[in-house]
């Protein structure tokens, strides 16, 4: 016996409690959906000619004002980057997405990929800063929006990676001084919230350097994010190092390899391959966490969205703007999380090795 009726009987109405739950959920879903459609489509205002937001105020509460998105999307996406030059951050966003897509391809997981990353990140830096190849120079305090979010997350993970490998190796080293330094670093960073590190970056970093050497605010936040990501990544990589059997270490010793050659040729290539799914999860967490730079006044995507609705004419339409920004964050994170899940499944199937017990971080 098959067909939709028997499916429904088995999966929705198998018992009285189950039927009650199904009916209640269906009722709430349908009601919520109708309410949302009414608000977001039927009663919505899509544009306000001449920027007069009175039409929007008239429907406030019963209909969405999407006009705010039409009026502000360039600001939300690119912040205060000079208007005529905004094709440059747009190209950067495209380059970032291409870089992610390229790195997701397992056939391309080779040493050359590092060179591709260096080249693309260099090109992005050149495009954003300008001052070369006839591009006008744009100072960092004009950068904003989505490119800043992508820069903070991607440069954060890329530059944290080599530090994290060294710290993870240091944490498993048999030299006590090195091991304790690494443990102290990891536990200190993981024990405090990211926002306190960002405060350090914004108010204490300037005190660290001699008079006259002023680091840019964005650069300081980037350093804090790198140091933060490195501690979490180091724990992920340590999981990979621990998952290898002792036989791998002993075999490398038996071949007479020194420490660095043992690590570079035998241990790390296997360990890093193991940790790619949790590494993607760390990147997702970092991608979301970059939004915290809002609190120290850096113009990332969320910060630009929050600023866009400060203007009196558009005040009160935060929900619409936040929904749009949420869908951008969701698109990136959902794609990466799906990728990480499928990769995990494939690595499990091909290697028959135990999963590394590192859940996604909040």
């Amino acid at each position, binding site marked *: 016996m098959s067909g939709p009726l028997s499916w429904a009987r088995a*999966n929705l109405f198998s018992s009285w409690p189950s039927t009650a739950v199904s009916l209640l*959920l269906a009722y709430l879903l349908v009601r919520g959906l109708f309410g949302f459609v009414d608000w977001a489509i039927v009663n919505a205002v899509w544009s306000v000619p001449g920027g007069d937001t009175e039409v929007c105020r008239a429907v406030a509460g019963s209909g969405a004002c999407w006009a705010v998105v039409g009026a502000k999307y360039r600001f939300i996406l690119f912040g205060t980057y000079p208007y005529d030059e905004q094709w440059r951050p747009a190209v950067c966003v495209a380059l970032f997405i291409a870089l992610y897509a390229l790195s997701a391809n397992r056939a391309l997981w080779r040493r050359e990929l590092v060179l591709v990353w260096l080249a693309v990140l260099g090109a992005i830096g050149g495009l954003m800063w300008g001052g070369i190849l006839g591009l006008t120079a744009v100072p960092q305090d004009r950068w904003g929006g989505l490119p800043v979010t992508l820069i903070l997350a991607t440069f954060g993970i890329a530059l944290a990676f080599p530090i994290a490998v060294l710290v993870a190796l240091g944490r498993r080293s048999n030299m006590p*001084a090195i091991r304790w*330094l690494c443990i102290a670093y990891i536990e200190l960073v993981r024990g405090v919230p990211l926002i*306190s590190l960002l405060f350090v970056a914004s108010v204490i970093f300037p005190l*660290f350097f001699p008079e006259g050497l002023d680091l840019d605010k964005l650069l300081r936040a980037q350093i804090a994010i790198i140091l933060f990501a490195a501690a979490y990544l180091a724990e992920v990589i340590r999981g990979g190092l621990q998952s290898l059997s002792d036989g791998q270490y002993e075999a490398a010793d038996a071949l007479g390899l020194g420490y660095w050659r043992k690590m570079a040729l035998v241990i790390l290539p296997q360990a890093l391959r193991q940790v790619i799914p949790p590494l993607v999860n760390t990147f997702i967490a970092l991608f979301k966490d970059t939004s915290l730079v809002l609190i120290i006044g850096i113009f990332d995507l969320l910060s630009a969205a929050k600023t866009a609705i400060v203007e009196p004419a558009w005040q009160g339409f935060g929900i619409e703007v*936040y929904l749009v920004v*949420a869908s951008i964050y969701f698109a990136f994170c959902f794609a990466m999380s799906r990728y990480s899940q499928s990769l995990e499944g494939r690595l499990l199937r091909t290697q028959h090795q135990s999963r590394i017990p590192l859940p*996604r971080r*909040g």
Partner: protein
Amino acid sequence: MKSNDDHAPRRRLTVSLNDRAFRAIAIQVVVVSLVAAVGWYLVANTLRNLDLRGIATGFAFLGREAGLPIAESPIAYAPTDDYGRALLIGVLNTLKVAAIGIVLATVLGTAIGIARLSKNWLLARVSAIYVEVVRDLPLLLQLLFWYTLLQILPGPRGALQPVPGVYLSNRGLLFPSMVWDRAHLAILGLAVLGLTLTIVYRRFARAAQLRDGRHRPVWPLACLLMVAAPAGAWAALGLPVEIDVPVLKGFNFRGGVLVSPEFFALLFGLVTYTAAFIAEIVRAGILSVSPGQWEAARALGLPTGLILGRIVLPQALRVIVPPLTSQYLNLTKNSSLAVAIGYQDIVSIANTTLNQTGQAIEGIAIIMAVYLSISLSISLFMSWFDHHVALKGR
């Protein structure tokens, strides 16, 4: 791993970079002195910069008058109090939202984790979508969203009333409270006594069941001792009850308990966000119990609720507790985002303090020390729990 050198007879004292032991010492000395040198350089620069700006270091500012207003505080506070007390209130506010958040997130997360494994297709799908959507959005965005949503709610005059007596408006969530009466103390004492007696009887019933195999239900006695007895006492004392229901007077409400929009948005955001992660942990924990355990329990004729409560969850706990601990730590650290929506936790008050006094290093050191001690306490408690409760009888 032991090297052969350890057992070599009459080792010569070698001072050569080819000697493993010497090289290890040399490397450590070099690394530690490098770290110390960088640290010394930064500290020296900092001291010079502070000197140039005329900022005196030290914690003397804690005794000065704060003059900063605090909207909600669990202990008495006036702006004329000192910075030390203001910061203490910040710590208490952080602990308050973290403690309530941890309890609620655990309950909600466990429910959603079990719901994801439900045989009911609709329930399982809705839970899965909830988990995926909530995990893929930045927490700060969610907090701002909920806070904005609360702000555009109607004012007290048009307040929503989801349940009679409970009002939701742009002033926050308002619900009725009970006025405390001395008779309530006796009733509460009776309930506590009942709980203690029930636990004692449950121990006895368990032990007796192990001896003769007869199941002695605990719930009739539990009902009698914890519900019927206090209710009887309440009736005997003449049903004293006075409920303070919020009523609209002019432009605002009077009476009831008010949950501020800041606290409500922060708690709601933290709980719904962390619950999504806890749900995944609970689900993985339940899946880690082998299907044979389910089958054996079903073969014994146990109902699903008992199987989950007595067989599966106790075993799943061993997988669940370690990652759950890190979620509790995350929730506590994430409560620092309060500063973005104006709930006055330790970060928010320390931030105001350092802006007013210029004591940046001290302010941030206080924030970090508070979170490090909270993290350490939760880790210690959970490892105690892990050893003494979760693994009992194994």
